[in-house]
């Protein structure tokens, strides 16, 4: 597996292309959001409560009469932000810990990986609840919580890449030439660890969105009136019998975004590193 000349392959992989299409669509919606929203997503209109989909309100209105389409559009920005920031919060410390554990081994490895094991032993959702309960429940803390929960996963992936890279002669060669550990780690080990990190990060964005939605569903995530899709799902739960559209549309949006990330991530993995194709 060599340099980055695999972009052509990416476009030939239907999964990656489909995923990219969905993500780009949602990205565009997110970025153009304020211009696309037909109504103010936060403005209640008590007279129009729980109206079904119509030409005026293609997605209907919610319990406070707000236009669901506008709220879904507005929520796209939030969800993508959640994906990006949560993944960043997991990826950076996780990668660093994985690099150190894999490269230096022995005590460093044991210390780091045992703490990662402890972290992973908690069900992600419980841990996230715990964190948001300690800090106050709001969107920022949701992202921190979700990010924190996935740190061990990146540490593991990176550590495993590092362990196999350590066996490669070119990594040993830098040391034989007189290179320092820092040089080896930053210029030789890390760049070769990137494919699995990238793949996992892409799939991880989908997972982060789901986790944030779950937290939002439990009322621990973004607080009303923020139009976060999970929170919207939660609101809609009460009305599922009489006004299913309130939950259905945000739910579908979550599904679509996560699907997009998963398809793209799968395609990316097939192109970058078919050896990861395990589960």
């Amino acid at each position, binding site marked *: 597996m*060599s340099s980055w000349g695999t972009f052509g392959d990416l476009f030939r992989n239907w999964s990656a292309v489909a995923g990219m299409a969905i993500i780009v669509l949602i990205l565009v919606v997110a970025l153009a959001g304020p211009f696309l929203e037909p109504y103010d997503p936060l403005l209640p209109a008590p007279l129009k409560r729980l109206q079904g989909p119509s030409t005026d309100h293609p997605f209907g209105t919610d319990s406070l009469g707000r236009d669901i389409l506008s709220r879904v559009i507005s929520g796209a920005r939030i969800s993508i932000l959640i994906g990006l920031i949560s993944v960043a919060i997991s990826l950076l410390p996780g990668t660093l810990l994985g690099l150190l554990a894999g490269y230096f081994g022995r005590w460093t490895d044991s210390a780091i990986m045992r703490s990662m094991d402890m972290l992973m032993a908690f069900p992600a959702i419980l841990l996230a609840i715990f964190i948001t309960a300690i800090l106050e429940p709001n969107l920022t803390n949701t992202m921190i919580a979700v990010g924190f929960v996935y740190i061990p996963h990146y540490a593991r992936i990176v550590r495993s890449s590092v362990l196999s890279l350590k066996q490669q002669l070119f990594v040993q*060669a830098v040391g034989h*030439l007189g*290179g*320092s550990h820092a040089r080896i780690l930053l210029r030789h080990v890390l760049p070769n660890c990137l494919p699995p990190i990238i793949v996992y990060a892409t799939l991880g964005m989908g997972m982060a969105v789901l986790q944030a939605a779950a937290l939002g569903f439990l009322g621990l995530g973004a607080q009303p009136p923020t139009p976060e899709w999970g929170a919207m799902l939660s609101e809609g739960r009460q009305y599922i019998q009489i006004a299913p559209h309130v939950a259905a549309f945000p739910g579908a949006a979550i599904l679509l975004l996560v699907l997009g990330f998963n398809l793209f991530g799968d395609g990316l993995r097939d192109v970058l590193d078919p050896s990861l194709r395990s589960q």
Partner: protein
Amino acid sequence: MNPTILRAQDLVMHYPVKTAGSARHRQVVKAVDGVSLAVKPGEVFGLVGESGCGKSTLGRLLLYIEKPTAGRVFFEDDDLGNFDRRLLKRFRREAQIIYQDPYSALNPRQPVGSIIEEPLVIHAIGTAAERRKRVAELLQVVGLRPDQAARYPHEFSGGQRQRIVIARALALNPRLILADEPVSALDVSIQAQVINLLEELKDRFGLTYIFISHDLSVVEHICDRVAVMYLGRLVELADRHFFYQKPLHPYAKALLSAAPVTDPHAGRNRQILGGDVPSPINPPPGCTFHPRCPRRMPVCSKERPRFQEVEPDRWVACYLYFKPTAWCE
């Protein structure tokens, strides 16, 4: 000129085996079990043996890439064990390595010019422009074109990649090169090209090689002296002519007779060595070769034969050629 460029004294390398259980039962891999040798400047010193004999480990110890469990290595007159990090880094400029596997020896994400340049960068030699010039020079020296410096390793064949490995090893102008099975992974016709290149480079730059290989024909062709290893110990060391004409140690004899000869009409009068190579975790007592030796004597299982000079510049560790010390007691 110093009579030896590199000298090893009683080198030992023991690796603990990770097994569950109490410390009392912890086992040790005796990868290198007491090796002493001296390499002369300008020579090609061959080190042969089969898998598990410890030759690669010995190579790493000789260049102090790993610290031996016991024993010393002298580069010219300096004990490498006394070198701090700075001095060891300086030593790396004098002694370099060529590896067996040209496919994993180069970073797939680094352009070839950068790979060759890296040793110069690590040691802060020259300006960027000077380094670029040197890279172009080195590429030409190994038979590649300077305009290929921007390409990536996967664009080159196995033989070409090995040339890049060689170019990188030469970048710092080393005096000594450890070649660890440098041609084993290459096809026959490419092997010949690389062997010729190594010989040219040795003559051109006055290099000394420590040449590790399992291929006796290649060793016979390129080496001046040959040392044979078995289970972590040297069993014979001799000038190439004498070794190939008349090996002394029974293992060396078996090795030479086992290697297939490219002559269908050569007598199939081969000495087939029975049994398998025992594990370096529990080597047999006394002479490690005695269980498979067709000439073994009772003393061979009791006392380990010393590695002794039995003729001028001819060393053997075998009681067929000298008496055990126990007899004198």
